C-alpha cells in the first residue's frame, strides 16, 4: 500500500487509487466537478489540479495514481491560480441567474466560487445563448446555459443506467448536452442526473421551484418503495416531504430509481387521513380520538382474542409487526403491490414493499381462503386478491389503521390514521436480510399515531 503525503499529512492509499480519492477518503478536500466515485474518469473540468513535488506541471489528481513517496500540495499559489482561472472560464458564459436557479444553495460552481475565487469577472463580451428549460425527459429539465459540460450525466446514463440517452452535441463553446437522436431521458434512473449535475443545468421537474434548498431539513431514512431499501435523505419542511435523495451509507450505492424517488407522493396525497373516521350509516364521519372509543368498543370490544383476526402489510416496519404479533393471536399478511415488470439488476426489485423479508422470517402466512372470526383489524392496506378473500365473510366489525383514503377498503367501519415511515422510527429488513433503521423525519399532523400506539389504545 503506497504511503504519500498530502499537504504534510501522511496517508496510506489503497493500491491503484487515485490521489483525489485517497485525499477525500482521508478528509482532505480537493475541489472537483467532473469526477464522481462511481463514474469513469473524464478529467475535463481541470479543477482538481495539485502540485506534485518533482513534476514540472500541475497534475489532475482525479487521474493521478497514488504512488509511494509522493509529496502533494493542494494549496500552492499556482494551484490557487489555476482554480481561479477554471472558475473564471466556467463563469464567463454562465447566466449568473442564481436568484432564480433551483440549484442555488447546493451548487458546486457557486460554492467553489465563494470558497476559491470570489473574483469579479473580466468578461465584457456577449454571452452565448443556449436553450433553457427544455423537457429532455418526463422528470428532468435542462438549462443549457448553466451547464459546465462536466459530462457526469452522459457518463451516468451510459455507464450506470446502461441507456445512452444523453450526448454532447456540437463542439467548442457551442457544445451542449442533449438527448441522443430519437431518444429521451426516460430511463428508470433519470433523476440521478439531477443529483449528479454539479450546477443547475439539470433540474427535477418535480422539485423545481417547490422550495429553496436552505429551508429544507434532511433526515436519514430508508426508501420504502421496494425490497432493496436504498438509504435516502428525506428533504422536508413544515411536515411536508419535498424530495428524496440518495444517501451515501458507505456500502457503494449512491443512486435511487425514479419510482422510488417519487414514491414520497403516495404518503402525502390530498387523500391523506389526519383524524379517525367512523362510519355512521353509510358515511364516514371525522372525529377526535377520545370520541371514537365508544365506537371502537362497540365494534371490536367483548370478543375473545381468537375471534379477532389481524392483517398486516409488508409495508409496515419490524416494530409495527412485532406490536401486531403481541396484540393478535390470529395474524396474516396482505399481499400488496407486486409489479414484476419494473425489476432490473441495477437497483429495482419486483417486490414493491420494504419488509416482506421479516414477515417471511416470522412465518406470517398470507390470508387463507377460509379466514374466520368476528372482528377484522387491517393494518395498512389490502390487495385486490386479499379483498376477495375477506369480503365474502360476515364480520361483526372491521377496523383499519391506515394513512390514506385510497387504502381504505369498502367494508371498514372505523379508520384510524396511521403514521407513515417518515413520521416514525423503525426498521426494514431488505430482500437480502440487511437490517436498516430509519428515523422519524417529522412530527405527525392531526391525530395521526403509529400502529403501536393505536394498538395500545384499543386494547
Amino acid at each position, binding site marked *: 500500500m503506497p504511503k504519500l503525503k498530502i499537504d504534510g499529512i501522511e496517508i496510506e492509499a489503497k493500491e491503484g487509487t487515485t490521489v483525489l480519492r485517497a485525499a477525500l477518503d482521508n478528509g482532505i478536500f480537493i475541489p472537483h466537478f467532473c469526477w464522481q466515485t462511481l463514474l469513469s*474518469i*473524464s*478529467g*475535463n*473540468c*481541470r*479543477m482538481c*489540479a495539485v502540485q506534485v513535488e518533482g513534476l514540472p*506541471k*500541475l497534475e*489532475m489528481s482525479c*487521474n493521478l*495514481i497514488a504512488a509511494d513517496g509522493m509529496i502533494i500540495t493542494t494549496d500552492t499559489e499556482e494551484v490557487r*491560480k*489555476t482554480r481561479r*482561472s*477554471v472558475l*473564471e*472560464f*466556467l463563469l*464567463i*458564459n454562465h447566466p449568473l441567474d442564481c436568484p432564480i436557479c433551483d440549484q442555488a444553495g447546493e451548487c458546486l460552481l457557486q460554492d467553489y466560487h465563494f470558497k476559491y475565487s470570489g473574483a469579479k469577472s*473580466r*468578461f465584457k*463580451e*456577449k454571452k*452565448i445563448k443556449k436553450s433553457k428549460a427544455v423537457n429532455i425527459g418526463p422528470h428532468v429539465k435542462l438549462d443549457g446555459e448553466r451547464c*459546465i*459540460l462536466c459530462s457526469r450525466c452522459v457518463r451516468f446514463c451510459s455507464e450506470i443506467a446502461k441507456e445512452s440517452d444523453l*450526448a*454532447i452535441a*456540437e*463542439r*467548442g*463553446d*457551442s*457544445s451542449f448536452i442533449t438527448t441522443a437522436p430519437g431518444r429521451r431521458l426516460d430511463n428508470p434512473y433519470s433523476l440521478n442526473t439531477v443529483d449528479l449535475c454539479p450546477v443547475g443545468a439539470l433540474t427535477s421537474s418535480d422539485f423545481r421551484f417547490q422550495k429553496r434548498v436552505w429551508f429544507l431539513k434532511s433526515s436519514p431514512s430508508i426508501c420504502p418503495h421496494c425490497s432493496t431499501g436504498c438509504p435516502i435523505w428525506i428533504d422536508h419542511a413544515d411536515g411536508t416531504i419535498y424530495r428524496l435523495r440518495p444517501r451515501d451509507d458507505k456500502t457503494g450505492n449512491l443512486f435511487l430509481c425514479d419510482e422510488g424517488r417519487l414514491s414520497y407522493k403516495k404518503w402525502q396525497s390530498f387523500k391523506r387521513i389526519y383524524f379517525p373516521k367512523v362510519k355512521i350509516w353509510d358515511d364516514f364521519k371525522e372525529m377526535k380520538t377520545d370520541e371514537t372509543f365508544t365506537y371502537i368498543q362497540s365494534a371490536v370490544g367483548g370478543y375473545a382474542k381468537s375471534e379477532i383476526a389481524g392483517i398486516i402489510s409488508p409495508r409496515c416496519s419490524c416494530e409495527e409487526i412485532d406490536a401486531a404479533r403481541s396484540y393478535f393471536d390470529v395474524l396474516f399478511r396482505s399481499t400488496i403491490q407486486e409489479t414484476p415488470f419494473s425489476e432490473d439488476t441495477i437497483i429495482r426489485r419486483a417486490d414493491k414493499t420494504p419488509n416482506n423479508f421479516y414477515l417471511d422470517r416470522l412465518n406470517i402466512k398470507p390470508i387463507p381462503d377460509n379466514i374466520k372470526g368476528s372482528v377484522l383489524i387491517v393494518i395498512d392496506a389490502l390487495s385486490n386478491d386479499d379483498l376477495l378473500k375477506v369480503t365474502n365473510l360476515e364480520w361483526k366489525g372491521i377496523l383499519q389503521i391506515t394513512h390514506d383514503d385510497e387504502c381504505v377498503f369498502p367494508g371498514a367501519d372505523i379508520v384510524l390514521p396511521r403514521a407513515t415511515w417518515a413520521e416514525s422510527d423503525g426498521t426494514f429488513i431488505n430482500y437480502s436480510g440487511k437490517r436498516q433503521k430509519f428515523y422519524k423525519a417529522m412530527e405527525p399532523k392531526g391525530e395521526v399515531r403509529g400502529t403501536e400506539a393505536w394498538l395500545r389504545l384499543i386494547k
Partner: protein
Amino acid sequence: MQILTQNFNIMNANRLSAYLGRDGYKSLGRLFSLRPEDVIEEVKKSGLRGRGGAGFPTGTKWGFVPKNSDGPVYLCVNADEGEPGTFKDRMLLERDPHKLIEGTIIASYAIGAKTAYVYIRGEYAKPCKILSAAIAEAYENNFLGKNILGKDFGLDIVVQRGAGAYICGEETSLISSLEGLRGYPKIKPPFPAIKGLFGRPTVVNNVETLSSLPFIVLNGWEPYSKIGTKKSPGTKLISVAGHVNKPGVYEIDMGLSLISFIEKYAGGVWKNRRLKAIIPGGSSFPVLSAEECANVNLDYESMISAGTMLGSGGMIVMDETTDMVACLKVLTDFYHHESCGQCSPCREGSGWAKKIMDRIVAGLGTKKDLDLLLDIADNMAGKTVCVFADALAMPIKSFITKFRAEFESRCL
C-alpha cells in the same frame, strides 16, 4: 538528399509498376530477415523522430508497446493533416502512396500489428482515392493480406475518412474517432501504447514518419543517421506557403538554415518585399520575427532554442505588409472553431480570446485587452487533456509580445 520526394516527379508515381521500378517494396526482403525487435533497434539507432509535430523518437515510441501481449496490437496511420499551413502528407499520399504502404508494413511488423488503420482527413478526397487504389494494388500483388511475399506475416490496411475535425489529428482523439466515439482526446495515462484503439496497445504514426522507414530498413540505420544534424537526423518535408515566390513542398536535410531555405528553395520573399515574420512549424507554434529568423536552422533543437518548434514543417511566411492583428484573428477564429469543447479552459478560453480579437479588429479593443489575452493564454496553456489549448496560447503569446506596438496601435 531525396528520400521522401524521390518519386514525386515521375510518371504515374502512384502506380505499383512505377514504384517497383524505383526499388519499391525492396526493403521488405531485408525486413523479414530481421526480428521485430531488431527493426525497432534499427529505427532507434537511425534517430528518426515523429514528423507529425512533436518530434518524439519513433523507435522509442514503438518500444512502449508491451511485448507478447495476448490479443491484437494496432497501428494507426495519422493522415489527418489539419494543421494550418501544412500540406506535406497530402503530397506523399498523392504522389507516392506505395511508400506509405511499405512503411506501414515495416512499422506493423516491428510492433506486431496485424491491422493498420489509416485515418485520413475527410477533406482529402483525392488523396484518399489514390491511396485506396494503391492499397488495392498492393493486395493484388501480395504486399498486403495474408502471408506477405510468402512469409509468415500478414497485414490488413483499413482506410477511414475523418469528418472534418482538426482535433482528430491528435492521437487519442483520432483513436476515439476511429472507435466511433466523439472525437474527444482521452486523458493520459493510460497512453495509447498501453491502452489505445479498442483498449489495445496502439501506435499512432504520421504519414511522413512511416514514409521514411523504407529507406532506413533498406539501407540500414547508418546512412539515414548521417543526414541532417546529430540530434535531428534525416530529411524533412517543409510545406511553405504565404508570401514567397515558390510556395510548395520541399525536402530538406535537417539543419538547413531558415533563411537559406527561404532563398534557395522558396524563391525568396515575393514582390521584393522584406520579411516580417515566419511561423515555421504550423500555426500552433510561436511565430518568429524577421530578426529571430536570421540565426535559426530547420531542426528540432535549433527551433526550440529559438523559442518555437519545427512542428509539422508547415511554414507560413509573412512579408512586411502583413497585418499581424488580422493574422492572429484568423488563428483565434480557427482555434475557436476547432476546440472540441471537452476541457473548461480550452472551451471557454478559445471563445473568449476570439471575441476579444473580434473587438480589437473592429477597433474597439483597449491595451488592457492585450494583457487580458496574454493572461487567458497563460491560463489555458498546459492545463488541458491535450495540447490544443497550448496550440492557441502559443500564437497569442508570441504575436502579442513580438508585435505589441502593432497591436497597441489598433487599440483605443
